[in-house]
């Protein structure tokens, strides 16, 4: 959380809306632990991370939608080796849940 505060402050000063994505659970191996956060500004700027980069594109897309409609979303990533090629997932084989919410609290 601490790592994304300076960027959030910058965006808030500019009057932008913000979404925060948080890793809330992790099974198997995953690059970032529960609590890891990615903040996304209305203009699509990023701070922090929820993985090593493998799931960020999908999270950013959801974050931009959540900024518009305000309803929190739960995303799940992590798929078998066979599926890994065509879908967005974690290369390391773990499963993570990412909660995406608008910063309106």
């Amino acid at each position, binding site marked *: *959380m*601490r790592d994304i*505060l300076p960027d*959030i*402050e910058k965006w808030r000063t500019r009057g932008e809306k913000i979404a925060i994505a*948080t890793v*809330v*659970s992790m099974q198997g191996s995953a690059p970032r*632990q*529960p*609590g890891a956060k990615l903040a996304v500004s209305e203009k699509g700027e990023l701070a922090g991370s929820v993985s090593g980069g493998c799931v960020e594109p999908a999270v950013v897309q959801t974050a931009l939608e959540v900024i518009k409609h305000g309803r*929190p979303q*739960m995303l799940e990533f992590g798929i078998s080796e066979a599926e890994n090629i065509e879908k967005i997932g974690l290369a390391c084989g773990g499963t993570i849940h990412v*909660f995406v*919410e608008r*910063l*309106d*609290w």
Partner: protein
Amino acid sequence: MSGLYEELRTALNQEQAIAIATLLRGTDHVGAKLLIYPDAVTHGTLGDPELDQRVSSDAEQAIWSGKAAIHSYTLENTAMAQEQIDVFIEGFPPPPELIIVGAGHIAIPLTTFARALNYRVVIIDARSAFATPERFPHANELIVAWPDEVLQQRTLYPSTSVAVLTHDPKFDEPTLKVILTRRVGYVGAIGSRKTSAERAERLLQQGLTEEQIKCIHGPIGLDIGARTPEEIALSIMAEIVAQRHGKI
């Protein structure tokens, strides 16, 4: 905006202990927030008083462990009855503090080691010749006063470690009497096996319980055969880390 984000940001910037709970599943309040401070002070709500109360008692542990995890609840006799409710609780402990009582030689390398391990270091000694900024430029706080009086007033956390190093019963014993009635992570006191045993006997006579006295690590430090002040400081720091990770 409910102001909870501002409050969380302020607490984090000031390095205060805090936890935040977010409702993930179970009601139409998904995304609701509760901030939890030590001693179960809360702001905000997850939408149900019973849930807030149960979450705040689980959050109390997270505040000090720094853990982030989903906790599941079922509630009775409320609108949310029978549903499984998932709450994500994240704890943000303040940086651990090491309070060194006694600004002698060992305290200097001990401050160095503790700072390298991201501890906030506080030196307390009534003897102004020892507790000088020249000797302790690397300490976060340097207090020249009677240690027991300072500690009586001070907020101590379960993550706080206290090393009592004055070698002088008139400072050490009143300090230990204050510390042992509070909830801290580590207490160590310098002195040989014989000194430690004699001190324990005197503290017992002064009204402390055997259980409280058993919490004192003394002779202080892991047994690594330390001889020099630097080696003793290393053994003390190693013992503090071992205690923190539940190894002793």
